[in-house]
C-alpha cells in the first residue's frame, strides 16, 4: 500500500513538474515573440533612419557638386580677368621695346625685357591654373587631328632650344626614322613635351637633355613613346611618389630655388591619361631623371556612359514645324535603321534633346515658336547638349546667312602682333597698310594696345567700345576688317556678328574675333562654322543629306 502511495506521490510530482515546464515554455515563447516584434520595429526605424541619412547625403553631395562648379566657374572667370591686364603689360612692354630701339635708349631695354618676361611667366602660370581647373571640372576637351610626329618634334625643338641653352645645356633629339603619323591632340602632346623639357632644363646645368621618340608597333594599335632624359640633380625615391600631384613639387625648397607652380607635371599626367596613355619617371639623385610618355598613335574617344542609342545607327531627332518635311525625313532615315523622333517646334525640340540625348539633330530654321537659330544657340550653350552635331535643314536663302554668321578668324589675347598681322593680311581685302581697321573692345587698355600695334604696322584705326557703337561706326564707313571682342556690355560680340551679317553691305567685311574668353570647342565651331553642315530644303540631294548624317553617326556611335 505504502508503495502505491509513494508511486502516486511521485506521479503527482512529475505531473506538476511537467505543467510547470509547459508554463515556462509558453512564457519563453511569448518573450521570443515580443522580442521579435521589438526587433522588427527597430529594423523599420533603422530603415527610416537610413532613408533620412541618404537624403541628407544626397543634399550634401549636390551641395559639394555646386561648390565645385562654383569654384571652377570662379577660376575660369578669374583667369579671364587676369589675362586682360596681362595683355596690357605684355603688349606695352613689346611696344616700348621697339620704341627704345628706335629712340636709341638701350639702357632701359633690359628692364623692359624683365617686365615682358615676368608677364609671360605669369601668363604661363595662369594658363596652368585654368588648365587644371578645367581638367578637374571635367571640361577639358580633346581635339584630335592627324599630324606627322617628326614635324611636331621639330617644332618643339625649335621652341625649346633657347630655354635649354640658358643653363648651358645641350639638347639632343633622337627621333626614330619610322615615327610616322599620329591622330591625337597635338597641342596637349606639345604642352606635355614642353613641360618635361623645361623642367629638365630648369634642373640641369651644363648637361645634356635628350628628347627621344620611337614608335612601338602592336596588334591592338601602335603606340608612341617619348622620353626626356636629363643629367641634372635628379630625385630621391621619397620625392618621386608626390611628383605628379597638383600643387606639389619634389619638396618645398624646390619651389623657392627653382620657381614654378607645381602644376606642370599634374597637368602632364592628366593630359596623358585623357589621351589614353601614361607618363612615368625614373630618377637617381645626382645622376638625372628620365620621364617617359607612352600614348596610343590613334586617340579613341571613351564610350559615353549610358549611351541612349541601341539601334545600329543611333537616334535622330528631327526638329521641324512642317509635318510633310518631318514625315519625309523620318521615312528616309527609319528605312535605314535609325531610330527617329520628331519635334514640331523649337521648344519641343529642345525638351526632347535634353530628354533623349540624340546622336544627331536635324534642325529647321524658320519656325513659329522658337526659331532654329535660338534652338542652335541653346543647344550649343548647354554643356550637356553642345556635343550633339546639328544638321541644318532649311529653306533656300538661309544658307548664305548660316555660313556668313561665322567669323573669318579669331585671335586670342594676349595678342601676338605677328599673328595679328598675318591674320589681317590674309583676311583684309586691302593690301597691308591700306585702309582702316575697326577695333571693338570695352577694355580701353586693350584698344590702346591694339591701336598702337596696328598703327605701327601702318593701318589706320578707329575704335568702338561695344557692339552697338561698332554698328554706328559701320554706318559711317566700311573698314577693311573688324577686330571684335566677345564679352562686352550692351551688345556682345556674338550679337554684333549676327547684326553685321544681317546687313548685305557689311556681310563681306572680315571679322577677326579677339578674345580673352576661353573658347569652348562649341564656341569655336559657332564662330567658324556655326553648324556641322547646312542643307537647303528643296535644293539638296537626298544622298548628300544621308551621307552627312551617316558620316556623323559613324563618328559617334561605337560599333
Amino acid at each position, binding site marked *: 500500500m505504502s508503495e502505491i502511495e*509513494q508511486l502516486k*506521490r*511521485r506521479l503527482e510530482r512529475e505531473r*506538476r*513538474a*511537467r505543467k*510547470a*515546464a509547459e508554463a*515556462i515554455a509558453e512564457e519563453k515563447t511569448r518573450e521570443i515573440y515580443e522580442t521579435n516584434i521589438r526587433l522588427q520595429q527597430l529594423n523599420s526605424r533603422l530603415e527610416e533612419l537610413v532613408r533620412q541619412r541618404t537624403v541628407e547625403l544626397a543634399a550634401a553631395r549636390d551641395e559639394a557638386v555646386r561648390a565645385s562648379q562654383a569654384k571652377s566657374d570662379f577660376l575660369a572667370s578669374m583667369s579671364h580677368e587676369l589675362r586682360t591686364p596681362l595683355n596690357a603689360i605684355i603688349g606695352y612692354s613689346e611696344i616700348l621695346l621697339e620704341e627704345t630701339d628706335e629712340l636709341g635708349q638701350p639702357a632701359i631695354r633690359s628692364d623692359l625685357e624683365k617686365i615682358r618676361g615676368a608677364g609671360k611667366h605669369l601668363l604661363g602660370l595662369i594658363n596652368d591654373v585654368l588648365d587644371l581647373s578645367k581638367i578637374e571640372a571635367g571640361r577639358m576637351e580633346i581635339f584630335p587631328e592627324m599630324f606627322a610626329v617628326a614635324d611636331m618634334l621639330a617644332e618643339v625643338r625649335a621652341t625649346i632650344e633657347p630655354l635649354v641653352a640658358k643653363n648651358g645645356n645641350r639638347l639632343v633629339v633622337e627621333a626614330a626614322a619610322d615615327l610616322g603619323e599620329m591622330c591625337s591632340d597635338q597641342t596637349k602632346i606639345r604642352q606635355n613635351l614642353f613641360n618635361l623639357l623645361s623642367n629638365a632644363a630648369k634642373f640641369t646645368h651644363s648637361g645634356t637633355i635628350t628628347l627621344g621618340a620611337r614608335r612601338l608597333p602592336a596588334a591592338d594599335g601602335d603606340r608612341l613613346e617619348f622620353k626626356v632624359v636629363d643629367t641634372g640633380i635628379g630625385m630621391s625615391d621619397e620625392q618621386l611618389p608626390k611628383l605628379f600631384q597638383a600643387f606639389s613639387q619634389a619638396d618645398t625648397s624646390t619651389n623657392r630655388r627653382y620657381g614654378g607652380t607645381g602644376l606642370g607635371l599634374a597637368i602632364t599626367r592628366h593630359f596623358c591619361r585623357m589621351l589614353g596613355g601614361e607618363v612615368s619617371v625614373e630618377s637617381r639623385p645626382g645622376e638625372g631623371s628620365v620621364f617617359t610618355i607612352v600614348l596610343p598613335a590613334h586617340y579613341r574617344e571613351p564610350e559615353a556612359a549610358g549611351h541612349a542609342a541601341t539601334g545600329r545607327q543611333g537616334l535622330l531627332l528631327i526638329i521641324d514645324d512642317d509635318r510633310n518635311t518631318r514625315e519625309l525625313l523620318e521615312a528616309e532615315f527609319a528605312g535605314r535603321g535609325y531610330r527617329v523622333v520628331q519635334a514640331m517646334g523649337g521648344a519641343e525640340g529642345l525638351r526632347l534633346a535634353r530628354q533623349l540625348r540624340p546622336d544627331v539633330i536635324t534642325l529647321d530654321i524658320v519656325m513659329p515658336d522658337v526659331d532654329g537659330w535660338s534652338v542652335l544657340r541653346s543647344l550649343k550653350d548647354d554643356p550637356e547638349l553642345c556635343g550633339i552635331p546639328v544638321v541644318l535643314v532649311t529653306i533656300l536663302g538661309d544658307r548664305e546667312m548660316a555660313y556668313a554668321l561665322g567669323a573669318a578668324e579669331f585671335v586670342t589675347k594676349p595678342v601676338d602682333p605677328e599673328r595679328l598681322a598675318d591674320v589681317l593680311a590674309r583676311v583684309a581685302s586691302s593690301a597691308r597698310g591700306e585702309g582702316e581697321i575697326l577695333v571693338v573692345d570695352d577694355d580701353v587698355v586693350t584698344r590702346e594696345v591694339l591701336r598702337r600695334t596696328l598703327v605701327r604696322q601702318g593701318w589706320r584705326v578707329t575704335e568702338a567700345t561695344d557692339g552697338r557703337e561698332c554698328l554706328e561706326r559701320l554706318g559711317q564707313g566700311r573698314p577693311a576688317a573688324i577686330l571684335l571682342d566677345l564679352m562686352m556690355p550692351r551688345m556682345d560680340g556674338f550679337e554684333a556678328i549676327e547684326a553685321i551679317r544681317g546687313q548685305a553691305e557689311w556681310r563681306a567685311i572680315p571679322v577677326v574675333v579677339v578674345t580673352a574668353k576661353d573658347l569652348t570647342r562649341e564656341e569655336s565651331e559657332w564662330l567658324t562654322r556655326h553648324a556641322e553642315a547646312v542643307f537647303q530644303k528643296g535644293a539638296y540631294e537626298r544622298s548628300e543629306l544621308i551621307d552627312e548624317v551617316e558620316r556623323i553617326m559613324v563618328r559617334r556611335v561605337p560599333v
Partner: protein
Amino acid sequence: MKGIVFTEFLEMVEDKFSPELADQILEAAELRSGGVYTAVGTYDHHEMIELVSCLSKKTGIDSAELLRSFGTYMFKRFHILFPDYFNEIESSFDFLSKIENYIHVEVRKLYPEAELPSFVCDTSQPGRLRLTYRSTRPFAALAEGLIRGCVAHYGEAADIEMEDLSDGSGTAARFLLTRRDVPR
C-alpha cells in the same frame, strides 16, 4: 538555483540509494516548491540545502561529503547532457580555466537571470592550477566534487587541496590542484 541541479540530485538519490529514499526526503523536507522540480525552472537554493541535510540525516553521511559526491556525479551528467562544451578541450586544467569565460558566458545567453558563482583561475605555475570559488551560496563542497569529477573525466591524477575562505560557511574556497602525472 537552476532546476537541473534539483532534478539531477533526485535522480542521483534514486540511483545510488533508492526511489523510496528520494520520496522520503522529499516528504520530510520543508519545501516551498512541494518537491516539484523541472530542469528549466529556477528554485530557491535553500531547498537544496534542506534536501542534502535530510539525506544526511537519513543516511548518516556528512552533508559536505554528500555534496562532493553529487558534484562528481553531476560532472559526468554534464558530459552526457552538454557534450558540445567539451569539444577541443584536452585536459581538466583546460576545462576548469574555461568555466568563467566560456561556459558561464554561454549559460547566461540562455538564462540571463542565472546567478552563477565565479571561478577565478591562476595557471602561472606549470602543473598547478589555483582556482578560487566565490558564490552567494554555500556550495564549495559541490564545487570540489565537480573539480574532482573533471579530473577523473580526463583520466588524470591530481592532488586537490581546498582552503576555506568563508570561515566555514562554504561560500568561498581556494582549490590548489597539482598534477601528479606530469613532470613539473
